[in-house]
């Protein structure tokens, strides 16, 4: 292993080494504060390493046949780390409620990040599967972590069984692909024969991925698991696991050059795979948005809206010329960045408002009138929601602009139509949340319903991070060059 390889793999190595050290640390002394600090320190170190890599790395580096480090993966890993740091912070406020010491939780968190890191760097089905399982198994433990909660067992079982079946589908698919191409590497040396076997292999593989991305019609687990899991874990599910799976899917997809080379697209099997992808995307956009309409529970609503967002993102896979690959990557990364920003903001507020009254379900009504009581948090929600809805002035709009650009270049008019219809439907529930924030809190309601006492006091750390998230959401929306120029350098 050369020094370059070591260097380019350093973020992953830091996280891996860090989790081993954490185990030792626990054996030495069990203290929640210590393990939290240590975990955050690991993530920050890895983040710094990734950022320096993005700056210094000029070309992709193949590290063993298993991994390929490139800047796209690096940037995705930065997003993952940012989200995980937020998860770490949020869980520290959540875990203080009981007397136990929750070392395991942080170890699991590190393992999730490690798994996600392996996924975004992988260039080989073996490493893909390794990362996939590491991610899933650690997540199962985290989803069911709060044992005394009502839904915890249900949701963790659902997640365990469904992700196990997803990985078995995926394994079978990988086996089929291997049987035809003779290689487990993503990059195919010789153009494979698009036999039925190969296509069905890809199909099965996609089923596995679709489970994780909760694309319709494989989305059924999402709302229940989102609702049952502790809020920080839900955030983990919504961001880290989805980013990692989507990036690895893109890596796989774009290595199959035949998906966007004209001469191959006429092939029936290739065509059916592409059509299948469009159908998945359109279904997710419509179903996710329609089902979100009637939700009162914020977590369930976000679960359904995340289905729709993954559907929008699939657009970048359906390009028609190799020249578009760069733009597709930029679009996906920008969209993911905006999505992560918005999702982290929303969950931050969710966790903060939850702290004050634990026994109630988090329904939209809890946020009633927040704008007049706590403008900062309400502004955070508004920017995040508008970003998810793709309204200008926010990062989400630029993300949507990117997606539409890719779709127009690829002339995917059906996908564009679905995106427009989907975002139209989406506005219903997004605006409902925003209007709730502006609602007057009537006097009778105050007495009967226990209102969240948000904004009585915000910890300074939280205020500062709220301001940072609001600003970055708006700045990226008004001046996206800050990020997109970075991508162009990749």
């Amino acid at each position: 292993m050369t020094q370059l390889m070591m260097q380019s793999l350093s973020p992953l190595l830091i996280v891996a080494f860090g989790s081993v050290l954490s185990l030792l640390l626990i054996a030495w002394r069990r203290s929640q504060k210590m393990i939290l600090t240590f975990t955050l320190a690991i993530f920050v170190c890895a983040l710094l390493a990734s950022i320096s890599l993005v700056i210094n790395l000029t070309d992709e580096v193949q590290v063993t046949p298993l991994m390929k480090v490139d800047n796209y993966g690096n940037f995705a890993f930065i997003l993952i780390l940012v989200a995980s740091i937020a998860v770490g912070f949020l869980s520290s406020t959540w875990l203080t409620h009981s007397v136990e010491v929750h070392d395991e939780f942080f170890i699991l968190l590190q393992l999730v990040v490690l798994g996600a890191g392996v996924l975004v760097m992988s260039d080989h089905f073996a490493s893909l599967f390794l990362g996939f399982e590491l991610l899933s198994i650690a997540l199962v433990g985290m989803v069911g972590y709060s044992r005394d909660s009502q839904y915890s067992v249900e949701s963790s079982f659902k997640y365990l069984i469904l992700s196990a079946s997803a990985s078995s589908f995926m394994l079978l698919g990988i086996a089929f692909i291997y049987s035809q191409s003779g290689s487990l590497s993503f990059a195919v040396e010789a153009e494979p024969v698009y036999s039925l076997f190969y296509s069905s292999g890809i199909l099965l593989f996609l089923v596995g991925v679709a489970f994780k991305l909760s694309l319709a019609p494989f989305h059924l687990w999402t709302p229940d698991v989102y609702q049952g899991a502790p809020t920080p874990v839900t955030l983990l599910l919504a961001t880290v696991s989805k980013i990692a799976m989507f990036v690895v899917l893109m890596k796989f997809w774009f290595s199959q050059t035949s998906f966007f080379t004209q001469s191959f697209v006429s092939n029936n099997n290739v065509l059916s795979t592409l059509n299948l992808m469009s159908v998945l995307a359109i279904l997710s956009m419509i179903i996710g948005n329609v089902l979100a309409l009637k939700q009162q529970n914020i977590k369930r609503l976000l679960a359904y809206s995340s289905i729709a967002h993954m559907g929008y993102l699939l657009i970048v896979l359906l390009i028609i010329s190799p020249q578009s690959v760069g733009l597709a990557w930029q679009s996906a990364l920008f969209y993911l960045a905006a999505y992560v920003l918005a999702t982290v903001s929303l969950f931050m507020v969710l966790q903060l408002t939850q702290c004050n009254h634990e026994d109630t379900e988090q329904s939209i009504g809890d946020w009633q009138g927040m704008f007049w009581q706590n403008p900062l948090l309400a502004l955070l929600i508004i920017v995040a929601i508008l970003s998810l809805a793709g309204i200008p002035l926010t990062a989400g709009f630029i993300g949507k602009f990117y997606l539409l650009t890719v779709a127009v270049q690829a002339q995917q008019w059906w996908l564009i139509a679905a995106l427009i219809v989907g975002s139209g439907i989406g506005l219903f529930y997004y605006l409902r949340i925003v209007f709730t924030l502006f609602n007057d809190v009537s006097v009778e309601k105050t007495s009967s319903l226990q209102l969240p006492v948000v904004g009585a006091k915000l910890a300074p750390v939280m205020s500062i991070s709220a301001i940072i998230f609001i600003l970055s959401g708006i700045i990226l929306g008004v001046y996206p060059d800050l990020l997109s120029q970075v991508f162009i350098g990749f």
Partner: protein
Amino acid sequence: MNITLVMCSLLLGGALAWYAEGVKTQSARWLALLTVLIVSIYFVISITTTGVDLSSLQVLVRLSWIDSFNIEYAIAVDYLSLVLVLLTLFLAIICILVSWQEIQTKTGFYYFNLLASIAGIIGVFTAVDMFLFFFFWEVMLLPMTALIAIWGHENKHFAAIKFFIFTQISSLLMLVAIIAMAAIHFQQTGLVSFFYQDWLTLDLPLSTSRYLMLGFFIAFAVKLPSVPVHSWLPDAHTQAPTAGSVLLAGVLLKTGAYGLIRFVLHLFPQASIDFAPVAATLGVVSILYGAKMAFAQQDFKRLVAYSSISHMGFVMLALFSFNAIAYQGAVLTLVAHGLSSAALFALAGMVYSRIHSRDLGQMGGFWQSAPRMGGFALAFTAAAFGLPGLANFVAEFLSLVGAYQRFPLMTILAAFGLIGSAIYGMVLFQNAFQGKRQGESKGQNQEGENNVNDLSKRELLVFSSLLGLLIVIGLYPNLVLTFFQHSELTLAITSTAGGQ
């Protein structure tokens, strides 16, 4: 002339008003009024002193903004945008004056939204980079939606969501068309560009330009609004606070017409000519349907809202007649309708503040106790149905004369709309101001049955300035029309139409 400065100071003034309200109550409205006044004075001075010939589009600012897509911050004006910006600023003052007493809660935030919305509208009228245009197009919506959703009447959330979704979906269609245009520009020149004047030089195949034109057309038709996509307007108007209605009817609808002129007709001349019969039919249907529906309404604001649909139908018909006279009529209609409908909505707001109802069934006999209000109301309804001497008459007359040369049959039908407008105008006036007060008066005026306070000085100022402008333009329409007589715009339109 610095449009950016105008927009920034409006935003800044709004933010200041928001902040000041927390320090001292009642200060927000003064600050807002002061900001708009200063901005308007600055703007008027700068246009009178500018030496630039504005009969063609003059680019004022052109800075690169988002390099990845070669998007620029580009602002340009010509007489069309100038007139509309002036109308916007004038109505902004009216808006602040009519909300003087009406808005009692969250006042600071209200004026912030009002000014932000006005800044966005000015941006729409002046942006020439299409991405920037789209940006402003959406930005003006957000505060407008907030105005409806927070300070609106009983069914405000429904109306606000409906308003937002209609415009948002249609504008996404426009966004797709914009991106497709940029992609075509890339194919033809190897460079992505969102700059309006670059697009004018593109050589579009007719088949593609038909689809792209539709993308723009739908977005603007929703805003205008034209018949199949008009249903947001009555709801939004009815539920919005008075200033919201004034702004909506006075300027927001004009952004649709502006878009049709600036983008649809100029970017896709041939496709527009082919599409003209359909568009003109939509216009005529809007005129007749709007008038019919206005006649059937019991709600004061709903009636005026439907009458707006009817009047904007004239604009659509005139624009798609490709004729210099009709074009002048269309532009004049924009101004005249902006003033007269703003006045009618302000009237509705004043009546509402007195009797707390918009139901025509509960009005009546106001003339006795409020003769000044009645006089103005008569004048404004007369303006709405096109009484000679007032601006609307000239505007509609020119529109019809111009349109007749191209669509004789449809113009004859459209002329029936004038009769319709006289009927609903009279219905409105009679129900509210003549006869006896109907229905139970609720709590407010128990001592005197028909006691409706007459106009206050502030209200008098609002009405007399509106009426004054209507009369001046009505008697001397060249005040507006001189700008459009020999402008490049009319020439471009007639030449494309003639070349057919």
